């Protein structure tokens, strides 16, 4: 093992603090004029890649490649990733859409080709994108590559020069620790780290870092859709039931509602 060549796929999504609005035709969510940001789980994966470099573990980080697929504004997302510490970026141009973009299987196939072309040995992804909430891409990629996977990681440790990695990850009811050898796919969970803010000098520097424009065809992939959106609707609204004055009122109301 000479060093780590890390791929960090990132997604531009509607900002987590914004309540999405359904469009009139019920085909998707309004995206025009809505604040977008880097998917929060992807921030964690960039941060972890950068920390692996800073930690100076048994394996040196040779290169961190950030990648995003989507419309023109994904370039901003990639600049943010580079301001946080990624060395270079690929922007795979895909027309904007309001249905969450490419399907995870398509993304996984694209990433599989990127991994081969760029000789990547560690892929760090977020555990899910907060728009589609699917949580599939990392596992699919690992399956396609035939690599081991560690999902929902809360701690990543490179143990030796042979590329042994120990990952603690979140499972139902606690955590579990796994050991695997590089190459490896890791998806990140919230407790992994606290992402840094990009400093102004780093934002300026990021503008000079290489950002290559790519097409899906460069990776031999088509935007094929297996799932068809029938409709997107509002969840059934909950009606607040009003307030009570004191604890007795609370107990009374709960009894009335049959909850006690």
């Amino acid at each position, binding site marked *: 093992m000479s060093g780590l060549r890390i791929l960090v796929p990132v997604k531009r999504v509607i900002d987590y603090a914004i309540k999405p609005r359904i469009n009139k035709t019920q085909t998707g*969510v309004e995206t025009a004029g809505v604040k977008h940001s880097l998917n929060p789980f992807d921030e964690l994966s960039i941060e972890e890649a950068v920390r692996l470099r800073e930690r100076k573990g048994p394996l040196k980080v040779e290169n961190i490649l950030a990648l995003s697929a989507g419309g023109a504004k994904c370039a901003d997302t990639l600049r943010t990733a580079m301001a946080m510490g990624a060395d270079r970026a690929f922007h795979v141009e895909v027309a904007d859409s309001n249905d969450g973009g490419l399907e995870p299987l398509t993304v996984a196939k694209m990433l599989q080709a990127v991994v081969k072309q760029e000789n990547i040995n560690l892929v760090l992804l977020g555990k899910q994108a907060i728009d589609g*909430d699917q949580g599939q891409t990392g596992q*699919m990629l690992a399956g396609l590559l035939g690599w081991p996977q560690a999902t929902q990681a809360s701690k990543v440790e490179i143990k030796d020069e042979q590329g042994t990695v120990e990952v603690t990850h979140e499972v139902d*009811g606690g955590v579990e620790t796994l050991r695997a050898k590089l190459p490896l796919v890791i998806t990140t969970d919230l407790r992994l780290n606290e992402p840094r803010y990009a400093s102004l000098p780093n934002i300026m520097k990021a503008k000079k870092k290489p950002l290559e424009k790519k097409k899906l065809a460069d990776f031999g992939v088509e935007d094929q859709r297996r799932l*068809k959106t029938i409709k997107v609707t509002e969840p059934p609204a909950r009606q607040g039931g*009003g307030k009570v004055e004191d604890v007795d009122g609370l107990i009374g109301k709960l009894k009335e509602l049959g909850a*006690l």
Partner: protein
Amino acid sequence: MIPIARNSALRAVRSQFHPSRTFNQPTPSALARLLSTLAVLEQRDGKLQSSSLSAIAAAQKLGGSVTAFVAGSGVKGTAAAEAAKIKGLDKVVAVDSDAYEKGLPENYAPLLVENIKRGEFSHVIAGHSAFGKGLLPRVAALLDVQQISDITAIEGEDTFVRPIYAGNAILTVQSSDPIKVITVRGTAFQDVETEGGSAEIVEGVDPKSPAQTEWVSEELAKSERPDLATASRVVSGGRGLKSKEEFDRVMVPLADALGAAIGASRAAVDSGFADNSLQVGQTGKNVAPQLYLCAGISGAIQHLAGMKDSKVIAAINKDADAPIFQVADVGLVGDLFEKVPELTEKLKSQA
């Protein structure tokens, strides 16, 4: 009608392979007869986990035949036997092997793929638990199909409903894949009769793919309480509890008084008041109990995503404008350090 012709041709072929099928399946429509679902069961130390039951519940809702699949150390005598008693299962495919005990996706996925191919299943369903989330996308990729995650309803054999944007939108989606690989939200699929069945346990195929990861250790939060994801009552605390000591002092007695599971908001978990496994919300657990009683939780979108399907929501918060009051069926404005102990005492004296 070409599709029908193809379907009936397929059925003809299938019934030659399985001549008994047409007799032991009195299904109402020809369509349902073609459906054959594999429910992937999750087991731990030989015991079926609750995600297994939701997978079976969803499979039964689809109609058609339901086969269950389970693998691990000596499961034929334990989890498979338990599954065989569940009403409405055609059979239970079991693979006894220590290699699958920890459910590691690297060798479990190829195992599952072999058994899916052999059984010619049209649908593969697992619970949307850590096990299902890690395993099924890998299986889907190996089968070259696009998975449908965390569904909350079934509208047809190829049409499913799932929440997106942290539950702020509901998507109905139709799959054109030949095999539907699905994970289901546990709180949306329940009601399985765990007694009265007598399914046959059959040997699965074992491709013996090498395990690429090694299971090192685990640390699980120990709890005598009902399981958070399936509890009928949940009490949940947030940042307003101020510290872990206060969280334990105030919330635990209330949970005891109600026989409830304990949950927490992300803010409480991040501040170290409660264990991560107790987190309710988009990035934690989804719960839908009869009663969800929360204290010191403001009601951020990410939290609401995990609990708004609860039957009755009660909230105690000192901020009268907290968003939680917009969804709560009953709200009490006040200091939780006074109100919660008072509530606990009154509940105890009534019991």
